[in-house]
Every structure is written in C-alpha cells, then in structure tokens.
C-alpha cells in the first residue's frame, strides 16, 4: 500500500469525522409512541453469565407480567437488553447506546458492583433513573440521586447476622474467620463485629485467610482454643465448604453462619454433611410461603422450567419497582420517575417489602436459611 503517511492522515481525519454523523439523535424520549422503552445492560455472557442470565430472566418475566396486565400508563413495556460480556469498558458503551440511540426512559443493571459503577455516572449525567438489581457495594448509589437499587447492602447483612446470632442462636461469644482478599468479606466482618459487640456479645477470636486457600487447620485450631459459641464465616461458598469439613474433623461442632456469598448449589456438593446445621442470610427463598412469592415461583418455573434464585427475584423486582414509580408519577419523565422512586414505601416485592431510604438503597428484610439434609430450608425473615 503506497500511501504517503501525510495523505493517509488527512484521509483518516476526514473519514473518521464522518463517523457518527450517520444517525440523528432519537428525539422521542421513549414515551412518544405506544411503548415505554426500558433499557437493561447485563452480563449475559462472560464470567458472571450465570448471575446475569438469572437476573435477565427475572426481568423478562416482569415484562410479560406487566404487559399481560395491560402495561404501564396504558402502554406496553419494551425491554431493550444489551450484553456487556462481563467486560469492563462495555457497560459505558451499552448505556450510552441505550440512552442516546434507543431513547430509553430508565435503565436496569447490573449484577456486579464494578460494572454498575461504570454505567451509573452516565445515567446520572443524562438524568435517567438507573436501578441496580443486585449490586451490594454501598458506593453504587453514592454516584448520584438517579441511582437506586432493590437489594440490601453489605453493612445490613452483617447487622442481620449479628442479630440472628444473639437472638436466635443465643450466642454469647463468637469467632470471625474473614477472607482478607475480598472487599465483601471484610465489610461483612466489620459490621458483624460492631453489631454483635453492641448487642452484648464478645468476639473471642479473629482469624483470616486468602480466597483460594485450601488448608484452614491453623486458623481453626486457634479458634478452637478460644472456645467460642459459634463461628461467623463471611466468605464465598468454595472456601466455606472446605472450612466446614476441616472444622468438623478438628472436633469443632459449633454453629457456623455467613452471608449470601454462601448461596450456590456447589456449597453442599463441596461441604457435604459437614454443613448440617449451618445458617446463612440471603435475599430470597423459593420456599417462602407468601402468596406473592409462590405465584412468582410458579410463573418462573412455567416459563423457564427451573426454580428461580435470588438474582432472578431481584431482577423481577427491579422492573416492578420502576413500573410502580411510573404509575405513581403518571409519566415516564426522568425527573418525576426519580422522585417517585425515591418515595417508594413498602412496595410488596418478591424479595420482601421494599422501602427506598434516603441513600436510595432498599431497606428490606433478609431471609435466613438453614442447611438440613443437604438442602436449604427457610428459617426466618429478619426485618431491618
């Protein structure tokens, strides 16, 4: 190719300046036609695909339900979904497309906090309300007053488990075993310790491990020596399963309990019988006898032929709470929907009665599950 660099530069500049001029901005703000356009960015492929797919299935079911009931404000909901491939850099592009190209009136997403944090400033800047179904990191909603979530945040879970330990398990002393490589684990441990001490309990041992560790006998021996009434393990299911096995081998038959990082079908296959009589907190259980929940579980099973998990329930709630706000606002205008969202009080969601607090986080109950005979059993609901 015998192009002179200079000619080439000029040609490049001209051709690129034409990029982007080929489409005029969509002037209709989604409400102009007979549908309400709602955008969703989700990790449908890539490493968090399992979570992203679940959440998306829940949201898609909510679209069916809303449209079957006549839609919102007399219009059908149209969900426009963009896959961000679980990749950093993609959510920003996806959300810009949804807002400027498709002209959506609100945005739903994402599961992972880091990707919600990438898209949130763009929604804030464009005054488009964004609802994250399941990003639990407190910083997500701190981006601005157009950013909401329908899940509880990490500090709340730590407090819930402390209450559960003192009130239900009647523990006087506890040990904490934290994953130091995880922000999530450190946060949970911190808030658990604060509340447990405030409730009159005493932390007698604090041990740490790194995600990926296989041997926990040193930490567990130290915990055994301190003789606590129970052990709080705010980690993820892979390590939790191994910790449970090794604890039982060392003759530690104390109650073990943790947070929603435990929730995975792999937990029981790793830990097996060692997990009998352990507890964890999460967002949702299909065993909940509440009629709203049972109706949701039935519809979900009919559509996807599987039992919904917490992500699906949160995905469903994220759109339902948006539809509720639009109905109350009587419009799809971003500012008014934002105000209505902020005023949400006791909305009967699948994951409990949701109230949006001053920090735009969902204030709602957590569910505590017990592991019995290798299955999760609903134990109790703890309100905030």
């Amino acid at each position: 190719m015998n192009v002179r660099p200079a000619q080439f530069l000029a040609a490049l500049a001209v051709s690129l300046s034409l990029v982007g001029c080929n489409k005029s901005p969509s002037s209709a703000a989604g409400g102009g036609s007979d549908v309400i356009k709602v955008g969703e960015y989700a990790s449908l492929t890539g490493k968090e695909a399992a979570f992203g797919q679940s959440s998306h299935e829940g949201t898609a079911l909510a679209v069916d339900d809303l449209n079957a009931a006549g839609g919102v404000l007399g219009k059908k909901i149209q969900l426009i979904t963009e896959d961000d491939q679980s990749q950093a850099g993609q959510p920003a592009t996806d959300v810009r497309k949804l807002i400027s190209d498709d002209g959506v009136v609100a945005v739903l997403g994402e599961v992972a906090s880091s990707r919600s944090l990438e898209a949130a400033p763009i929604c804030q800047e464009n005054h488009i309300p964004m609802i994250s179904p399941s990003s639990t990191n407190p910083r997500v909603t701190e981006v601005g007053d157009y950013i909401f979530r329908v899940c509880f945040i990490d500090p709340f879970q730590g407090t819930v488990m402390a209450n559960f330990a003192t009130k239900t398990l009647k523990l006087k002393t506890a040990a904490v075993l934290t994953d130091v490589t995880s922000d999530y684990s450190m946060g949970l441990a911190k808030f658990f310790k604060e509340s447990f001490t405030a409730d009159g309990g005493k932390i007698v041992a604090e041990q740490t491990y790194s995600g990926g560790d296989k041997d926990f006998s040193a930490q567990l021996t130290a915990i055994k020596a301190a003789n606590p009434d129970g052990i709080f393990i705010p980690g993820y299911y892979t390590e939790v399963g191994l910790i449970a096995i090794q604890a039982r081998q060392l003759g530690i038959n104390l109650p073990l309990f943790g947070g929603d990082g435990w929730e995975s079908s792999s937990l029981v296959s790793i830990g097996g019988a060692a997990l009998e009589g352990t507890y964890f907190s999460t967002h949702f259980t299909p065993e909940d006898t509440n009629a709203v929940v049972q109706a949701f579980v039935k519809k979900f099973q009919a559509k996807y032929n599987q039992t919904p998990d917490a992500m699906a329930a949160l995905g469903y709630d994220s759109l339902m709470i948006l539809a509720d706000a639009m109905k109350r606002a009587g419009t799809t205008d971003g500012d008014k929907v934002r105000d209505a969202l902020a005023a949400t009080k006791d909305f009967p969601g699948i994951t409990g009665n949701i109230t949006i607090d001053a920090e735009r986080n969902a204030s709602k109950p957590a569910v505590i599950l017990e592991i019995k005979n290798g299955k999760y059993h609903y134990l109790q609901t703890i309100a905030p």
Partner: protein
Amino acid sequence: MIFNRPKSLLLAAIALCFVVSLFENHIQSYWLYVSYDIAVNIILAVSLNLINGYTGQFSLGHAGFMAVGGYTAAVISNQFSGSNPVLAAAIFLAALIAGGLLAAAGGLLVGLPTLRLRGDYLAIVTLGFGEIIRVIIQNMDAIGGARGYSVIHGWTNFFWAFGIAAVTIYVVVALVHSTYGRGFIAVHDDEIAASAVGINPTKYKVTAFVIGAFFAGIAGGLYAHSKQYLTPDGFGFMKSIEIVVMVILGGMGNTPGVVLAAILLTLLPEGLRTLGDVEHVPGISAEYPLGWIANTRMIIYSLLLIVLMLTRPQGLFTRQSARKNPKIA
C-alpha cells in the same frame, strides 16, 4: 522523503480534529463515544505495530502499559477541581504525558532484562508483566483495588482522541522512515546480520518497547477520561490479545492497514448491534428481522476473524507478503 509536507498535513489533521470537536454536541453521544474507542484502539494498535510489526518482537503486555498510563493520568487529573477550561486542558495534557512516561518507564523496566529473549519466550514474559500490573492494581486500595477507580473529569473529546491518534501515526511512520528507524526493520529481518553491520539489536528492541509503551500509556489516559471508570479487569490478557489481533489483521508492519483494522474491529461489533434495531426490511413482514444478527454478533465477529485469517493471513490490507518484509507505508 520531503519532511515539510507530512508535518504540515499533520497540523492540518489536528486542526480538522479541533474543528470537528466544536460540533460534538450535534453528534449522537453513543457514536461519539464509539469514535473515542476507535481513536484509543488506533493509538494502541499503531504503537504495538512498532514492537510487533516493524521490530518483529512479540509483546502480549500492551494492556499492562495501558493500565499504568490510565491509572496515572486518572490519579493526577482527579486532584484538579477547578472549571477554567485552559487550565483543565493543560492539566489533561500533563496527566496524559505523565501516564505515558510512567508506562514508558514500565516498558524500560520490562525491556532491559528480558529483551534478550526471543519469540515465544518474550511473549510469555510480556504476558506475565501485563498480569503483574493487573494484580498489583487489584491490591492497591488507594486506587480502588478490585472495585475500580472513578475518574472525575470526562475530558476526552474528538480533538484530543484523534489529534493524539494522528500524532501517534505520524511519530511511528516518521520514525520508521528515518535513518535511525531502519534499524528496527533490520532487527526484524535478521538480528545476526543486523548486529554484524553494527546495529545493537537489544537497544533497538528496548527503544521500540519504550516508545510503544509511551503511546499505550497515553491511550490508557484517553480511555480513562472517556469511560470515567477504571477496573483492573479491563486491562487483562484479553485486551492485549484484542490489540494483537488488530495488528495481525491489519498486516504486521503496515501502518495504514493496522489503522483500518483498528477502526473495523471497533466498529464491527457495534455496527452489528445496531442492525438489530432496524424495525422493517422491505419484503420481510416480521418486526426486527435482523434481531438475530445483534444477538449472535460476537459469534459473527469471531467467525469473521477466523475466515479473514484463513483467507488473508498476510493481513487484510496488505498487498504482498508483508510479514516477511515489512513495507514502509
């Protein structure tokens, strides 16, 4: 080579970018930001082409240099909170250059001890370097660790993005054209013969690495100020591979080809995505008849790469076998 014309055309290109940037508000924001992605990818691909194409090394660590530059520029610009546009522009430029320099220092650091290695061995070392950078950032709490780091200012615009892309192309092309620059190609063609005529291959390799890393760092700074959010995950191995694919698809050592490949590979997934939004196609009654294209775009994209590599192994935009003998554009 007449040096005056390219220089004045470079200035003309930059001026054109400036004029276009004045009309940014009239361009749809989605396409505008896709165009920033294009500029960032052009800078990355052209600078990697200096290492992988012209000098014949195989680096898989370009995303690591990009991360160093991106985070450095972001940390510097986040200290600034005024509204004076001239001062903001000066700080942006300084932040970009500082990011580039730190990335170049990283290039030197990894280059000096390892560039005596060749081929596959070098590829593995640079791959390791990129991963080390990512893991270090993941564990640095001051810049957000694994959670990510917010960048306050969205300063990247058409002028900065494409102005710098033009400068990068100019520098790389002019360098390879220069007397000094012939050394890169000599090292590429035959290291032993090159050292026999008095060229120090290690010196040339390190130089290529440092210059390549500098521009990758600047690209990182532009990326940081366009996305306004950085996570270590975004600078992983896959990002490096993406840049390598642009270089190979464009043709090793073929700058115009690499630039076109960078544009094509950035536009393709986005273009396929928008096809799905076409509501009606004449002759087909179904609504959104092209929706399947949008849903399978990543498969189409991957298939296209395979087909292109099978049919045009010498590079999409190369007329002759340029891998053997890099042609100066």
